[in-house]
C-alpha cells in the first residue's frame, strides 16, 4: 500500500447498544430486554475504542473515521463517538439486508466499509465486545477478513511512525489464577481491540493541550455530526448479499444458558414487573438503604 510516511489513518468500529446503566433499562414482562423502550447509546466498549482513536489523533495526528453497522437510529452512536474522538468522517452501514447479522456477517459488512473509506487504513480500533449479548468476535473476524494483524485485550499502545509498527500492552486475565501483562509488537495495518480497563493517559503537556483543543472541536463537530455522516446501503458498499445479514450468519444460537453461580448467602425474590405494589416495595427497599435509619 502506498503511504505518506508519518500519516496514520485510523478507523473505529462502534455499536449502538441499549443503555444498561441504572434507571435506563426497560424489561418485558417475561424478563427479556424491552428493546423498544430502553434508551440506546454508544456502547461503553465502543466508547473506549473511541478514546483510543482520540489518543492516535492527539499523539500521531491520525485521521480518524468512525463506522457502525446498524439501523438508521445508530447515527446516535456515531454522534456520541464524534464527541469522544473528534472524527473526520462518520459512516453508517444501514440496510434491511444487514439485519440479523451475526459477528461474521457484521465483519463482512465492516470489511467492505473500511475498504471504501477512501484511504488505506493503518489501524482499526474496536471495543472489547458489546454489552447486549455478543461474543467479542466481531473484532478478530474483521481483522481476519481485512487481512490485518489482530491484537486483543489492549490496555496501552503506541505507534512508531518510522518503522510503522504498533506496540501494544495486553492484559490477559486468567480468572482465579493470575493476570498476564504482555507486550507485543506488530507491523501495521493492525486491528486492536481495547480491554475495558484501557485508560487514555496523556503524560505530556503538549498532548494535554492538544487533547483539550480536540475535545472542544469534538463537541462542536458532534453538534453538527450530520455533515460528517455518510449512510451506506448494501448496494453502495458493493457487498455480496450472500455473506451479510441473516443470510451470511452461520452462527446458530441454540440456547442461551445462564452460567450457574456459586452459592452465595444472598437471597433474591422474583418480582413481577407488572405488579405495581411489588415494584413499589422494591423502590422502598432501595430507598431505605439510601435514606433509611443509620
Amino acid at each position, binding site marked *: 500500500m502506498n503511504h505518506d510516511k508519518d500519516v496514520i489513518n485510523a478507523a473505529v468500529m462502534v455499536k449502538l447498544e441499549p443503555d444498561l446503566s441504572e434507571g435506563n433499562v426497560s424489561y418485558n414482562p417475561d424478563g427479556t430486554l424491552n428493546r423498544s423502550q430502553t434508551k440506546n447509546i454508544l456502547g461503553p466498549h465502543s466508547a473506549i475504542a473511541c478514546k483510543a482513536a482520540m489518543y492516535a489523533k492527539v499523539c500521531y495526528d491520525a485521521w480518524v473515521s468512525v463506522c457502525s453497522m446498524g439501523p438508521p437510529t445508530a447515527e446516535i452512536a456515531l454522534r456520541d463517538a464524534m464527541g469522544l474522538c473528534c472524527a473526520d468522517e462518520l459512516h453508517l452501514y444501514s440496510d434491511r439486508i444487514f439485519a440479523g447479522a451475526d459477528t461474521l456477517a457484521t465483519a463482512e459488512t465492516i470489511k467492505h466499509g473500511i475498504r471504501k473509506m477512501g484511504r488505506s487504513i493503518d489501524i482499526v480500533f474496536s471495543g472489547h465486545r458489546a454489552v447486549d449479548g455478543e461474543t467479542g468476535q466481531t473484532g478478530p473476524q474483521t481483522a481476519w477478513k481485512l487481512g490485518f494483524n489482530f491484537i486483543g485485550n489492549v490496555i496501552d499502545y503506541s505507534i512508531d511512525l518510522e518503522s510503522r509498527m504498533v506496540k501494544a500492552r495486553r492484559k490477559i486475565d486468567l480468572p482465579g489464577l493470575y493476570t498476564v501483562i504482555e507486550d507485543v509488537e506488530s507491523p501495521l495495518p493492525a486491528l486492536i481491540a481495547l480491554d475495558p480497563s484501557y485508560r487514555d493517559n496523556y*503524560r*505530556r*503537556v*503538549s498532548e*494535554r*493541550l492538544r487533547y*483539550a*483543543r480536540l475535545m472542544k472541536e469534538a463537541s462542536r463537530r458532534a453538534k453538527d455530526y450530520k455533515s460528517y455522516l455518510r449512510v451506506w446501503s448494501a448496494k453502495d458498499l458493493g457487498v455480496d448479499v450472500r455473506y451479510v445479514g441473516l443470510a451470511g450468519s452461520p452462527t446458530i444460537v441454540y440456547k442461551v444458558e445462564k452460567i450457574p453461580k456459586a452459592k452465595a448467602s444472598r437471597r433474591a425474590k422474583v418480582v413481577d414487573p407488572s405488579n405495581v405494589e411489588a415494584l*413499589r*416495595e422494591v*423502590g*422502598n*427497599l432501595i*430507598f*431505605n438503604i439510601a*435514606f433509611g435509619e443509620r
Partner: protein
Amino acid sequence: MDRFDAVIVGGGSAGLAALMELSRLGIQAVLLESGKPIGSKSVSGGILYSKNYPNGRVYNVEDIYPDFLDEAPVERRITRYYLNALSGSKVYTIDLTEAHEYRTNFAYSVLMARLNKWFAERAEEEAAKLGGGIIEGVHVKDIVWIDDGSGSSSGSSSNSGSSSGSSNSIIVTDELEEFGAKAIIAADGVNSEIALISNARGKLEPEALYQGVKCIVRVPEDIIDERFDLDDGEGVAHLFAGDISRGHNGGGFLYTNRDTLSVGLVYHLDSLLKSPIEPYNMLNEFLTIPVITNYIVDEVAVPKELDRTLPKEEQLRIRFGLSRLLKEYEGLRYTYYSKHARLDAIRQGLYSSEEEIKARLEEVRGKLEKEYGVTFANNYVEVEYACKLVPDGKRAMMDKPYKNNILFIGDAAGKGIFLGTRIEGINIGIDDAARAARAVARAREMSNFSEDYMGRYYAQLVDESPYTEDIRRIDFEYMKIFVRACKSIPLEPFPLFLRLAFMLIQKTIVQELASSIARMMDQSTLLKIIESNDAYVKIPMEVAERVGREVKPIAEIRPLSIDERIGRLKIREDEVPHIRIKDPKSRFIKAMVHLCPTKCYIMEASEEVSKEGAGAKARLKAVVSNVILQHEGCIECGTCSRETEWRHTRGEKGIVYEYG
C-alpha cells in the same frame, strides 16, 4: 521534551490573569493548576475592586478581561460599606461608603470558585490561539535548574542558583513527564511551594498571616434585596469588630451575593496561636449574635418525626414522597423569591405567570403541611464552609519577588492590603500578573530570562505599582476619610477624656496634625497602634456599649456542627499524605488541635501513663502529650504549614470548593 517560553504555576485569579495577559502579548504560555476543575481550590471573602490612582496606573480586572463588566458572573455591585462595632447584642454602625469608594472605580462581591472558572474560559481561549492553555489536575512538585555545563540542581534539595540564576529549568510534576520552561510565574497562592522550593523566601511568620474562615449562607434573592434595602444588582458589605473575637485581633465580615451571603472571620494568626480557639466555634458564635442571625435567618421546612410504628412500607412511602415534595418546594421558593429566576421560568414556559408560580408554591406548601405534617421554622441554610490563610502584605510581601527565572505574583508573593477596614488581595494579584507578563515579554524579546534581567525588570515594574506603595505605607488620605466617618459617633455618653480625644481627632486641623505626626512616626510604631487590641476589640466594644443600639434577635438559629460541615464538603481523598508533623509535641502543633478548621489534628492519649495508672494530674499531662494528624479531611488552608512538611495534595485530589 516539551519546552515553553512561559509556565504559570497556579490557576487562582492571579495566575489566570497572567495567562490571559501573556497570551495577549503573544507569548505561548501554559498554566498548571492542581485543582480540577479550575477554581475548586479558591477561597476569597470576597470583594473584587477596580481602582485608580493619581500617581500611576494599576492593571484592573477589566483591563485584563475586556468583557468583564458585561459578561463576568459577579454577584452584586457593592455600593454601601459599613463598619459595625459590637458588644453583646449592641451594635453601632459607621458608614464607611466614602472610604470604600476612595480610589475605587467599582467593586463587586464575587464567589471566587465560580469567577475563576469564567476567567479560565477567557484565558484559555486566548492562550489556545498560540498553542498554550490550561492543564487542570496537575501538581508541580519540583523545579530543576540546569546550570549550563555544570549539571543540574534540584530546587528543593539545594541552595540553588548563582546570583544571576539559571533560566534553563525543568518542571517536575506528579502527573506529567518533565518539561522545560524559560520563564516561570509562581501564582501558587499563600502556601506557595515554589517559594520554598526555589529558596526565594522561607515560610511566612504567623505575624504575617491571617486565618480566614467563612461560610456561604443561602437566602433568596428578593429577601436579600428587602432585608438590606437594596436595588436590583446592588450589594452591601458589613464589617464587624468588637467582642466577637474573644479578644483576638481581627474581625468579621458579611457580604451580599446574588442569592447567598458570605459570612466569615479573619484573625491574625499570631493572635490565634497565643490563645488557640476553634475557628468553627468562633464562626458559630458570630452566626448567633443577633445582628448576624437577623441577616442570615430564613424560613426552612422542618419535617415531622416519622412514626416508627407505621408499617415499613408506609414509612418508606412517606419518606419518598416527602423528599420529592421538599425538593420541589425548595426549587419553587428560590424561583418565586427571585425576580430573575421568576422571569426565566416564565420565559422558558415552565409557568405562565408569577401568580401561577405563587399558587403552585402555596399548593406544595399546603400539601407539605397537611399530608406530611411539615412545619416551617426559622433557621439558616449553610451551603459551604471554607478556610484559608491570607498573607498580610505589610509583613509578608517579598522584597525580591523573583528568583532565578521565577516571578512571584499575588498571594504567592505575599501581596495584599489588609489594614483595618481595607481588604484587598484579588485586585493586587491581577496587577502583579500584568506586570509579570510584561517582564516575560521583554525577557523573551531580549532572549534573557535571567534573574538579573527579567527578575529585576519585574521588580522595577512592581515598584512602580501604586499598590506597592500602598502596602508599604499607610495611606493617610484613607485614614482621614476613615476618621471623618467616625465623626458620626455621638460623644455625650463617653467619659470626658475620651470625648476630648474624639473631638480632637474629629477636628480637621487636628486630623492634619495627627497625620503629619503619624507620617513622622515609623511604620511599625504606627501599625502597633492601628493593629492594637484596643483598636480591634476594646474601642469598638466601648463604642457599641455606650452608643450602640440594642438588636433583638428575630429568631433563633442552629449553626452546623463541624462534623456536619465536613460532611458537606467535597474532598477527594489523597492516599498519599501531603503533610507530615515534624514534632508532635511542639506547642505549635498542639495549637493545631484547636486551629485546624477541619479537626485534622487530634490529641492522642499516651499509653505509658494509663498503664502506670498515675494520678489525675499526671494523666492529664500525658493526654496532651502527643498529636496525630488525619490528613483525610484537610482543606489545604495552610494554618499548620509552619511546623510541618507541608505540600498541597496531588493533582485533582483534596478539597473541591463550589463557591469559594
